[in-house]
């Protein structure tokens, strides 16, 4: 009973959030810039996290997020009220990241990746068991490298599904495809990731 009530409450909160976003979008569309700022404040972390996983660079991710919100603001009139704002903004980010990857603008990504790897080595992990940490770090590092090496259309769906935990209908909306299509894309992306990462993991286990 309590659980059902909690679910109902959660669903109601979700609806409220959706309505609230829609209201903010409408207000922003009517020229209330503060409403758009609220949307930015509300969703910027989610969007930045996604962009960071896509670009693997803080600077690039910031640029992408900012550009995404600028474009969102400029295209508020195109926003359909029935869509979730997060879905819409994530779609913009996905497109931006794909465009960026296509244009080969990844100048500092590798440098930052290297720096982050060194930092991770020093700061992450369980200090109790350094051997386990070492192996775990290497595995994570291998996954990270493999993920970064994936083409953006594969990377984006893995991030959405396996890192962000988005449901397939939402992924479908972000990708502008059917739910079945989204499932298929996720499967293909995982397959591609597996093909890249398996040799690295096997090396680790030897």
């Amino acid at each position: 009973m309590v659980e059902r009530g909690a679910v109902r409450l959660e669903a109601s909160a979700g609806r409220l959030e959706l309505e609230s976003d829609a209201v903010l979008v409408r207000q922003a569309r009517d020229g209330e810039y503060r409403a758009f700022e609220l949307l930015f404040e509300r969703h910027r972390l989610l969007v930045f996290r996604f962009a960071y996983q896509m670009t693997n660079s803080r600077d690039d991710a910031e640029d992408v997020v900012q550009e995404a919100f600028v474009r969102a603001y400029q295209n508020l009139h195109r926003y359909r009220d029935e869509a979730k704002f997060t879905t819409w903004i994530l779609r913009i980010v996905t497109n931006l990241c794909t465009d960026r990857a296509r244009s080969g603008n990844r100048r500092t990504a590798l440098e930052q990746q290297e720096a982050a790897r060194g930092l991770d080595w020093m700061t992450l992990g369980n200090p109790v068991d350094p051997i386990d940490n070492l192996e775990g770090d290497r595995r994570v590092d291998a996954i990270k490298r493999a993920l970064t090496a994936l083409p953006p259309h594969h990377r984006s769906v893995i991030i959405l599904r396996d890192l962000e935990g988005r449901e397939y209908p939402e992924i479908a909306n972000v990708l502008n495809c059917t739910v079945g299509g989204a499932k298929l894309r996720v499967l293909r992306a995982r397959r591609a990731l597996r093909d890249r990462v398996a040799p690295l993991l096997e090396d680790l286990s030897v």
Partner: protein
Amino acid sequence: MKKKNDDLLRLAFGELSDADATVVEARAAADPSARRELQVCRDIRASLQHLPPPPADGLSAERLRAAILDRELGARKPGFAWGWAPMALAALAAVVFISRPAQRSEPAVVAMNNEIGENVFKNKPLMSDFSASTNAAAAVTMSVATPAVTSAKSSARFRSNQRGMEGARPHTASWAPKPFVKAPINAPVAMVARLDSFETIASPQSSVDTDALASKAIKDGADTVVIVSGKRDLDTGAAAATETEANHVLVGG
């Protein structure tokens, strides 16, 4: 083989139904390579869950606002869109056409010679004939070419430096030719215009007390009074006018 691996992937990522999961797990248990493959897939999933979190972002609402402003202004920066030039010209022409002086709103202006001026000014209240006019006004300076100069016909020129509220400007046809033709060569020019916010008076040089007229005009609601006095140009014989300004009353011609 591919289908088998896909099932293992789905199983590792928890996307098989319970029934399907049981079948695939049983198959993997019996097949060492499938078991290894399943373990790889599970490792991938676990590692994805343990990717380091992103660093703190340096985003801010102020930065975003600046970026939006830059973009909005930038969008207006690119040079003139020449493709729109014909439409812009057409629009400009339309505006000019629409705002051109309307014939029906010509200010009521009369011009008269000394005798008529005296008669009007002395026998009638100033501007009584024109008080009903609702036309807007324009400051007018004028010079007159009398028959002595142009011999064949009289003409009048005027220059307007103030557009009326309805874009009206004095029209020569309403006041210039007829009275001037009748006037003597050296006749002083008299002009009266009664308008909503502006009045123009041209008086005979000596026969009318211009100061009194100006005061009366202002008392009756005129913002500005122009008094035009004719003078004969000694070289050409044409009537010319001089213009002076006293207080807020413009006296001139």
